[in-house]
């Protein structure tokens, strides 16, 4: 049958006769005979305007074309063209897409779980050292006014009896916030203690931070930040930054909700009412603080407060009975003055 042909050596277009012989063929044009070539060595190209086009393995530019499409008797001998790629063609578009989507989901999930898995593999002793290192930055601001540390210890013991690994301290900074460092170190800022209306409110905040300690959230989020910043470092600065912030905040929302769950359970077991904590959150989100808006945003920026959060604590109160205050008036007074009555703690305010 007649085909058109480029031999890949010159641009001349030939129109030889294709003469098949078993699994091979020759191209005959008057007295010129090319070949033999094996059908199996042909590579299918894209069909254009109904013409089937084939190349030859290992030969640049060698082409034969069947102008009216492939004759039926040759179709079985010739390889099929690739559409999407060899692998996908074999499976089929939709099964391949479904398979890839599944694999992609698993890959993304594994990738997102890596920090949690790595965090679990880090020994407690290493984590504690890291926390101690970070806590040293606050060193000379730690407050220890008369009876203050004892009151704080009593408060922590009520919420979480029997946990000796947790160390809670108050730092002389006028910020309404509390942070958990690696290794079970919880740092309350004096601004938060002053902004609290009752010891039960402080207890709620500490119980929440204890949840972070128990779930090892801090180490996990540190690892996540580290990993994301390395991975996304290759992206354009803004895109990387936004993606990083979005992923990190999505995770912190989950971690916050889990820490709240822990706090609600801990308060229930310690017979401390969760209502003051809910009130504290509501006050913060409404901005009712004598210290001004600037101080409040600190807690809000790391602990996004929604109506749901306060509602969860309020709902939990229905199951409570026999609640009693976490500290008596004297202890609460000592805790409130833990920084102001400590001459050794460095003065509040920031040094630049």
């Amino acid at each position: 049958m007649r085909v058109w042909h480029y031999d890949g050596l010159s641009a001349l277009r030939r129109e030889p006769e294709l003469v098949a012989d078993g699994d091979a063929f020759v191209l005959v044009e008057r007295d010129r005979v090319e070949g033999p070539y094996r059908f199996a060595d042909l590579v299918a190209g894209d069909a254009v305007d109904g013409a089937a086009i084939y190349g030859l393995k290992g030969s640049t530019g060698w082409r034969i074309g069947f102008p009216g499409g492939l004759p039926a008797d040759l179709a079985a001998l010739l390889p099929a063209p690739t559409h999407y790629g060899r692998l996908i063609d074999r499976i089929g578009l939709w099964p391949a897409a479904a398979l890839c989507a599944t694999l992609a989901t698993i890959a993304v999930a594994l990738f997102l779980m890596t920090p949690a898995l790595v965090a679990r593999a880090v020994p407690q002793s290493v984590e504690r050292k890291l926390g101690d290192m970070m806590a040293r930055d606050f060193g000379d601001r730690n407050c220890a006014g008369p009876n203050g540390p004892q009151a704080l210890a009593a408060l922590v013991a009520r919420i979480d009896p029997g946990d000796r690994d947790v160390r809670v301290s108050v730092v002389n900074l006028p910020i309404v916030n509390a942070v958990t460092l690696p290794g079970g170190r919880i740092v309350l800022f004096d601004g938060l203690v002053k902004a609290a209306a009752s010891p039960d409110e402080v207890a709620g905040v500490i119980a929440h931070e204890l949840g972070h300690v128990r779930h090892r959230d801090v180490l996990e989020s540190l690892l996540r930040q580290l990993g994301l910043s390395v991975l996304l470092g290759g992206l354009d600065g803004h895109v990387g930054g936004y993606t990083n912030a979005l992923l990190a905040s999505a995770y912190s929302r989950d971690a916050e909700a889990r820490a709240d769950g822990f706090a609600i359970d801990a308060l229930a077991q310690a017979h401390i009412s969760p209502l003051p904590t809910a009130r504290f959150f509501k006050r913060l989100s409404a901005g009712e603080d004598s210290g001004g808006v600037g101080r409040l945003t600190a807690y809000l920026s790391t602990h996004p407060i929604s109506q749901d959060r306060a509602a969860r604590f309020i709902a939990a109160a229905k199951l409570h009975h026999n609640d009693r205050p976490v500290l008596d008036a004297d202890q609460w007074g000592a805790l409130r003055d833990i920084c102001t009555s400590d001459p050794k703690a460095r003065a509040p305010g920031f040094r630049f």
Partner: protein
Amino acid sequence: MHESQGNKAFTFSGDWREFAPIAFTNLLLSIVTLGVYLFWARTRERRYLWSRTHFIDDRLEWTGTGRELMIGYGLAMLIFVIPFGFINLVVLNSAMMRGHEGVAGLVGLGLYLAFFFLTGVAIFRALRYRLSRTLWHGIRGGSDSFGLAFGWSYLWKSVLGSFTLGLLVPWTMTTLWNERWGEMSFGPYRFEASARAAPIFLRFLLFYLAPVFFLIAVIALAVFGMVAGGMGSWRSLPSDGVTAAVMFAILAGFYLLFFVVLGVIALVFYSAYFREAVGALRLGDLEFAFTATTGDWIRLFAGNIALVVCTLGIGQIFVGYRNWTFFIRHMHAYGEIDLARLTQSTTRRPGQGEGLLDAFDIGAI
């Protein structure tokens, strides 16, 4: 022997409805493979576009593969992005922290120069790759050069250009065009390019001086506004919130106007540059011409932006199609080709795709 005078040498016979299934399946597969399929997607797109492009009496054919593009990308990551990222992050930061500002400055300068060098190499190699994968009558193009000399040339011309406050840009653009095309060939024929800077320099000055005029206009307006405001009573000024909103609107308006106007002026220059560059290209007895006017370029860009914005980004998959058809529509060739003398290229066939170029995200031609 082929005459191409009279009717157009380059024609495109594709149809976007015929292309749509390719574009949408590419999008689907790229998403479910987290982007890995992009290399094959680009290959499929080019196979379609090339196969629907006629030159004189036959179609073009794209013979590149997705695997080549992926290997090129991987190599670029290996030899460029990772070492550069490491030097940038670790070496520079630690040098800065230890107080070796001089060392940090030198390393930074070295990185900057290396970046220009590699950009030049990348532009060259992308063009070489595309020519080597383009078949017409079974014949391909290519180059025997690896592009290192072009990289050096690109480096020092860029540095020189910045020392002369950018006034040499038309000269660097046209000479670099001539240099890289002069190294390219198709079949046995070498391309020749003789683009000149002089014919496009006036349009470049327009682009160069526009921001200055703009700045003067803004200052004049501001001064005028202040004088006018000063004449009225201060009490009649609207409240702070309204003033801030108005100021913001004015600023945003200026910002937008600045970029739209500057973008249009840039196209005034670029359209002239591209006409000059393509018009100065020869291959054997073939001469080329590009006929897109500034208006054509504006319509292309405005259309692309509208396409992407109106489809919430999905229209992006048709941008490559639009760019290619624009390119072919305005591309002309005149002269003769002796098919018997057009024999296969003997240039080395590069093994990988335009990886570095992907890493830098720049166009090839």
